């Protein structure tokens, strides 16, 4: 059984991080250059960590599967980044941001971690502005803010609809500076395929050069994974196509615990699926719900009709009907589940029947078409580009889609996993969002981990490692890991089955979405848990991976990622089945209040579930880390 010591520092909440920084071990400047750190991933967390660690004097190697570190999927975040600056003088504070984030996570995160996140949020904005991130400004030249995701204060900083891109380019520029200075050795188009453990500690990785197919071994004093979330286990999601869980999954198979895999977030306002060929779902800002009214026809037979021809009396504005006080602004998870229910009843619209109308005709009557264009023009353009329909003329169609995973590898307060020397940052870890992430908090966490947490906490581990004690990449453990990777690659190519990789990914996505999507029940989860192993079996018998291993081979890359999703999906469902409560993004239909709100069970489930791999074909072990609420009393999360 894994030892899960969260290493939460003692003392008052607001002093924990300061005291911890004052007490953890330091590495002296002359010794820093003797340590080598591997950072995998170059999104917000990875590139900010790589740049900062290199600037501190560590020797850093950064690996990404992309052709440039600037392309990581952090780039796609639209809305903004939260920070407790209180620039609007509207009563915001570190405590309020802490409290909102903790409550938003439905009381399933650690108080100390979330408070630290709120504290360093302030430094993030300073850092980004110093780098030249062009945040929106007011006419007086000061930074502009907006309120986001139902927050009662304006604490969100933004750069048009491209906040993620601008923050990533800021981190990328810092990383570029260090690459140019020779302080970071950059490996693009290199995919981590195994973790190397020496003497119980993470000491290296094995990567495949995606262009030449060469398998390489890299040794280091510590390994940092910042490889993002695992939402593509659902196949269709708002994630980039390349986003994958391979790095964290293979670390899991070396003993790193996987925490709360069932905490997944589903966003209500995405453009619906249009056919089987679909590869990607596109998110539209949920600000649309401020003025749009959501409805479906009352009668099934009306679903194929032109929506404009359906009289008012035959429309069901179901959110307004079921949630009269919140109406169309009901929280993300509530709105998503309601859409699913009406579609399950056969009242969904659009060619696939999986869609609901988002209607602006009332808003146009009230504000005029130009008024609506001023507020939402860019979103109507995105919609038009994808669907060739005008949201001004006919109601838009929307449907929920997977877009973030709160679960991830278990880490302690230092962001170290239970495998010594293995650190996990950003969406890849489980740490700060509990069971649900609030809008504009993902960017905050990625940069907090990379710029302001790991640069201090990694020293606490490295100081225990003798300088120069780094193992040689020719050691037995490295060779074994390389052999493992080579064997797996060969196995994929040798199956020569009858179905392409995409076939299995699509089927897995369907099982996951139906069994473990927006609303989960014991029955749907048990069904998924029967279907996934069968599909996995079929994959290993019947997948067809063309080409060879010694060249760029995108089918081979995809095969490895899907093979891992076929295992991770099972763990996700198992976690969802075991967690007999509803909280945040994890909704078990058996556990709800009459109004559809999540019903937590704090007595039995006020803990982190950290799953530990026990070997092939063996059930994983469920470890529990209790969540001790010292400062805030968990209550029923209500937004009414």
């Amino acid at each position: 059984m894994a030892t899960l010591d969260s290493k939460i520092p003692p003392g008052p909440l607001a002093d924990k991080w300061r005291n911890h920084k004052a007490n953890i071990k330091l590495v002296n400047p002359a010794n820093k250059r003797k340590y080598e750190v591997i950072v995998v991933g170059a999104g917000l967390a990875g590139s900010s960590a790589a740049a900062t660690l290199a600037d501190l004097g560590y020797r850093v190697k950064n690996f990404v599967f992309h052709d440039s570190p600037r392309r990581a999927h952090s780039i796609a975040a639209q809305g903004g980044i939260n920070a407790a600056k209180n620039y609007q003088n509207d009563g915001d504070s570190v405590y309020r941001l802490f409290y909102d984030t903790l409550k938003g996570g439905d009381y399933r995160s650690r108080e100390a971690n979330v408070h630290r996140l709120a504290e360093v949020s302030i430094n993030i904005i300073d850092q980004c502005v110093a780098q030249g991130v062009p945040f929106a400004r007011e006419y007086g030249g000061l930074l502009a803010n907006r309120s986001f995701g139902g927050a009662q204060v304006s604490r969100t900083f933004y750069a048009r609809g491209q906040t993620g891109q601008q923050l990533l380019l800021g981190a990328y520029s810092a990383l570029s500076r260090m690459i140019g200075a020779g302080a970071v050795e950059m490996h693009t188009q290199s995919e981590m395929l195994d973790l190397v453990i020496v003497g119980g500690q993470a000491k290296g990785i094995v990567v495949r050069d995606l262009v030449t197919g060469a398998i390489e071994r890299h040794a280091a004093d510590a390994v940092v994974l910042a490889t993002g979330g695992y939402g593509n286990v659902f196949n269709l999601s708002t994630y980039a196509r390349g986003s994958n869980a391979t790095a964290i999954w293979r670390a899991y198979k070396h003993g790193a615990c996987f925490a709360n895999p069932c905490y997944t977030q589903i966003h209500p306002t995405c453009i619906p699926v249009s056919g089987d060929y679909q590869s990607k779902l596109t998110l539209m800002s949920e600000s649309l719900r401020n003025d749009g009214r959501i409805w479906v026809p009352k009668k099934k037979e009306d679903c194929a009709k032109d929506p404009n021809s359906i009289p008012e009396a035959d429309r069901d504005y179901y959110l307004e009907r079921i949630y009269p006080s919140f109406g169309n602004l009901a929280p993300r998870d509530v709105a998503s589940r309601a859409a699913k229910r009406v579609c399950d009843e056969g009242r969904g619209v659009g060619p696939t029947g999986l869609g609901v109308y988002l209607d602006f005709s009332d808003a146009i009557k009230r504000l005029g078409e130009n008024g609506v264009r001023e507020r939402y023009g860019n979103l109507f353009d995105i919609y038009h580009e994808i669907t060739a329909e005008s949201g001004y003329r006919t109601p838009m169609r929307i449907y929920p889609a997977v877009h973030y995973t709160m679960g991830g590898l278990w880490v302690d307060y230092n962001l170290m996993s239970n495998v010594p020397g293995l650190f996990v940052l950003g969406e890849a870890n489980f740490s700060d969002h509990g069971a649900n992430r609030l809008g504009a908090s993902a960017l905050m966490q990625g940069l907090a981990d990379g710029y302001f947490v790991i640069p201090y906490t990694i020293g606490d581990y490295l100081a225990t490692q003798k300088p120069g004690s780094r193992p040689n990449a020719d050691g037995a453990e490295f060779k074994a890991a390389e052999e493992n990777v080579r064997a797996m690659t060969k196995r994929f190519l040798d199956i020569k089955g009858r179905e392409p990789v995409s076939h299995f990914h699509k089927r897995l996505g369907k099982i996951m979405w139906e069994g473990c999507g927006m609303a989960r029940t014991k029955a749907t989860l048990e069904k998924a848990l029967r279907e996934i192993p069968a599909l996995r079996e079929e994959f290993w018998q019947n997948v067809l991976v063309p080409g060879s291993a010694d060249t760029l081979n995108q089918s081979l890359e995809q095969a490895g990622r899907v093979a891992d999703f076929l295992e991770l999906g099972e763990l996700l469902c198992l976690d969802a089945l075991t967690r007999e409560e509803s909280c945040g993004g994890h909704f078990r239909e058996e556990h709800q209040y009459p109004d559809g709100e999540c019903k937590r069970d704090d007595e039995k489930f006020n803990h982190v579930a950290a799953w530990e791999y026990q070997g092939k074909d063996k059930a994983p072990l469920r470890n529990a880390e209790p969540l001790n609420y010292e400062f805030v009393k968990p209550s029923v999360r209500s937004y009414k």
Partner: protein
Amino acid sequence: MVAENTTKNLSITLRVWRQAGPKAPGRFVDYQSKDLNPNMSFLEMLDVVNDELTLKGEEPIAFAHDCREGICGTCSCTINGKPHGPGHGVATCQVYLRAFRDGDVVTVEPFRAAAFPIVKDLITDRSAFDKIQQAGGFITARTGSAPDANALPVPKGDADRAMDAAACIGCGACVAACKNASAMLFVAAKVSHLGLLPQGQAERDRRVLAMVSTMDAMGFGNCTNQYECSAACPKLISHDFIARMNADYLKASWRSVFKPEPASSAGGAG
């Protein structure tokens, strides 16, 4: 939706550049793609073609893609001679089949430029862009040393113009569209983004000189004011920034004659 149900599916002939590796000879190969939903994206069509090729025992077409929502800058096909295809202000992943007609022959090539060598099929190596960034595309701001974000007000007009330039996604369409394969729009966007902000002033001269000289060393051509770059840019970045960079470059060169930078910043107190 009513409109979609009445829209006819289409069939097109894809004429795709196939090239096994950087040194291998390349050629166009025709593929028939039938019964396509016009709401399918161009890259989704390639997914379908690739699955068909896989089942036939042929190697799928390698193409670069990731976010599929026009922001990561990975996708990079020249479609019917135009980088990113027939749309205006969009990346390849935002092209939908309704832009084509039933029976069309559609040519698909990689972005062509000497500085972007072909890796395989439709994938090119654009690491030259990263090299230019590494030479000076940054503001030195050591983590932890930043002053309060509101300590330095930035006029809204400057911040907005910096943002216009910062919207660049680094895809390289500007280079592929230019008859000289010039990277001036890309470099000008970064030089202008940082040069317009007060935080970027300390390194302004050094930045433009270093980035331009690296651009030249990477084998990109010169600008001859054709403006094809802005026309192909998925973010519609204006060629006005090139003029701005030229002015910056001239001033920086002039100043560097009289005030050359010290060869090394090392040494000093001790």
